[in-house]
């Protein structure tokens, strides 16, 4: 080898990189006009979310949405609340212990069989034996609570309950209805993945699914009983970079980070759509293992020592809103606007820390998950150090983190999850009663005033009165700070306006592609 060869190699290398920088910018894509009669195909970012029956999809939002394209429920949700769906009307009788659902006439399954009240009763009774993957509260199906489900006529179903429950309509009304003539023989529904398992009554029919590639292809159900599907073919394809794929025209809907929004503003092809903040992070305390956390003053000191605005600015790049100590998302329809703000004040936090009965320890371990959560942990460590609280950030992969939560094996833990916009009854499940359930409850936290209100709201059938109780519950939580909500993400979506523009947000969910109303005539 010549002694100058490395130098030459270096020069060639340098030129190569400089030339790479001069690559031609991608050409602008033109608006695509459809010919008369041509099918409208909309492509969305995909990924494997399981076989979309009520028993085999994955227990995450996208998995549920795939199942709901195929299966209908008695009720649906729109921008403002619950709306009649398979049930064209319903009645609540006997002070909320008896429900009558009147089904739409002329509803057919994808295979042409008529959908009747018997299918509805079958579905609920089948779910009692075999729980579906996605169910808010399995207790509503228990024999002690749901006393009977019977079909009264060909299109009327009667539910008799042991006690009134303000959330029954939502919880039962959203369960998918499955055909009795297909499922009645099935013993292991989670393993039933014949094509006929996908016979639903919904607006879309799955005609291709690849688990390996994470692709789904749906065709519109031409015989749909309800509002007609506007998209003829709905495809989910695997995507590694949503922005790049959107710009290339391969997908028509994407999630776009804050720093890239500029590329799409003022472009007539694209529409920008901000999601409501229903996905967020919170910090949980272990009040059993570390009894000092039972002092609300210590928890308040933590809340004051955390600069939530800074988290929004730095981690979410401004795409988020700080959490409220009342726990509900500020975008929630029943959010209480008159709660203490817990503005960042490390001085006050230090003051509280020095006057505690049981003093805080020198240092705490914060269990976090991956990626962004580690960054949040690092920022929290820095912020809390200013108030004199030392934090060690202990990262773990998501599965380890979750299993340590279930075992109660943590001091402080950071969790991120969705559903901050759903029925506030989740506050009851999370913060009332003494519980051993580390995943859904808060062991060690007990406030009898809160528990009483929580029990009262679930039996209150008058919505306005119930709303007031929920407001009061938020006030108690904001004072007690059983958890610290850090921030809620405000994701920005961009879609191709020339291809399809029917995207909507239902009142309690952040993702417009997850609700079937986004795909139907309005």
């Amino acid at each position, binding site marked *: 080898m010549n002694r100058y060869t490395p130098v030459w190699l270096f020069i060639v290398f340098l030129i190569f990189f400089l030339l790479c920088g001069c690559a031609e910018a991608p050409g602008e894509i033109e608006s695509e006009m459809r010919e008369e009669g041509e099918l409208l195909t909309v492509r969305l970012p995909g990924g494997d979310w399981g076989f979309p029956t009520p028993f085999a999809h994955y227990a995450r939002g996208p998995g549920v949405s795939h199942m709901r394209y195929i299966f209908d429920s008695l009720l649906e949700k729109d921008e403002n609340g619950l709306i009649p769906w398979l049930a064209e009307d319903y009645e609540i009788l006997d002070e909320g212990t008896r429900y009558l659902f009147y089904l739409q006439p002329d509803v057919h399954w994808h295979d042409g069989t008529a959908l009747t009240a018997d299918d509805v009763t079958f579905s609920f009774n089948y779910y009692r034996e075999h729980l579906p993957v996605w169910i808010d509260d399995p207790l509503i199906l228990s024999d002690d609570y749901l006393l009977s489900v019977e079909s009264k006529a060909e299109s009327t179903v009667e539910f008799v309950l042991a006690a009134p429950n303000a959330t029954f309509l939502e919880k039962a009304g959203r369960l998918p209805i499955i055909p009795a003539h297909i499922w009645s023989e099935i013993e292991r529904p989670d393993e039933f993945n014949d094509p006929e398992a996908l016979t639903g009554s919904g607006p879309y029919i799955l005609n291709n699914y690849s688990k390996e590639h994470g692709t789904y292809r749906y065709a519109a159900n031409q015989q749909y009983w309800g509002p007609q599907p506007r998209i003829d073919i709905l495809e989910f394809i695997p995507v590694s970079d949503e922005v790049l794929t959107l710009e290339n025209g391969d997908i028509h809907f994407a999630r776009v980070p804050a*720093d890239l929004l500029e590329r799409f503003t003022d472009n007539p092809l694209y529409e920008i759509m901000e999601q409501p903040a229903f996905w967020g992070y919170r910090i949980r305390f272990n009040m059993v293992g570390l009894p000092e956390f039972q002092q609300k003053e210590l928890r308040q000191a933590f809340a004051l020592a955390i600069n939530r605005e800074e988290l929004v600015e730095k981690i979410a790049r401004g795409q988020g809103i700080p959490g409220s100590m009342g726990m509900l998302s500020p975008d929630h329809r029943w959010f209480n606007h008159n709660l203490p703000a817990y503005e960042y004040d490390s001085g006050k936090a230090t003051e509280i820390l020095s006057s505690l009965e049981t003093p805080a320890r020198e240092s705490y371990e914060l269990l976090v998950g991956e990626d962004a959560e580690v960054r949040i942990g690092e920022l929290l460590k820095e912020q809390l150090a200013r108030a004199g609280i030392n934090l060690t950030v202990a990262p773990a992969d998501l599965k380890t983190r979750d299993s340590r939560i279930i075992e109660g094996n943590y001091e402080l833990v950071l969790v991120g999850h969705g559903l901050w916009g759903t029925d506030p009854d989740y506050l009851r499940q999370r913060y009332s009663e003494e519980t051993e359930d580390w995943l859904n409850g808060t062991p060690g936290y007990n406030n009898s005033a809160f528990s009483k209100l929580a029990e009262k709201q679930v039996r209150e059938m008058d919505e306005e009165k119930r709303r007031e109780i929920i407001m009061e519950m938020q006030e108690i939580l904001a004072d007690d700070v059983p958890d610290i909500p850090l921030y809620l993400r405000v994701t920005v979506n961009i879609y191709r306006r020339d291809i399809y523009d029917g995207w909507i947000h239902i009142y309690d969910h952040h993702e417009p592609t997850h609700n079937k109303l986004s795909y139907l005539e309005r």
Partner: protein
Amino acid sequence: MSILTSGIKSSTAMAYRSSKRIWRNLSLMGRTATVILIILAVMALFAPQLTWHPPDASSGPALAPPGNTHLLGTDDLGYDLWSMICFGARISLLVGLGTALLAGLGGAFLGIAAAFRGGWLERIIMRLVDITIVLPDLPVMIILAAFFGPSVRNIIIVLVLFSWAGPARLIRSQALMLKEQPYIKMAAHYGGNFFYLLKRHFFPELLPLLTVSMIRLAGMAVITEASLSFLGLGDPTSRSWGLIINHAVSFSGIYFTPFWKWWLLYPWLFLTLLVVSLALVGRETERLADPRL
């Protein structure tokens, strides 16, 4: 006292003379690489003196471009990149040096022992070497790193477990040759035990060869640590270069923004400099150790 000082003086003088001799024999690339390595080592050693912002606390606005206050800009949390790179050099060099020393010396010891003792010991060691060489290292390392949990110490252990086999095999073959040399046979005959021979004959003879293989190991270790960190298997709270790159790359849409021009480019540049310099120095020492090449 005077004997001691004169001893130190003479050994310093000897070291100076021999390094001067080595320096004269180095090619231009070798000299450049050595200088770069020395600069990087100085950066790591004197990181607290060379930086004026903490590496683990935000010291300015997020994602500020390179400028007067922040020499190489800041990352998304507002941490100073120059500080992170200087302190990160410690991790990269520690991993490189630690792995090279442990795997190199350990592997050499096993190789010599196998050659010298022979018999069942040799068979066991050589079969272990075969197994370690056959196993695909990166996938297994990913599993081990995930299993042991992320920390710099664990990464060094995992790297050592996978890289001792190369030097062991190399050194064994040389030691086999050396063992047959008359002077070694003589020394053994007069009662020199294994450790005596190891210290007085094998190690000094094999040192040049071992150095070459250790420098190679160091380069490999630095790259593997960076890859593991990049894949998210390093210690996520450390400030290694691989991790800075990992954070930069997981920032969504970084290539569409100007941020990559400092956040991604500089750690990449320093990593490349270190690895390329190590490779060049390795090649040079190989040439010096074996003049036939």
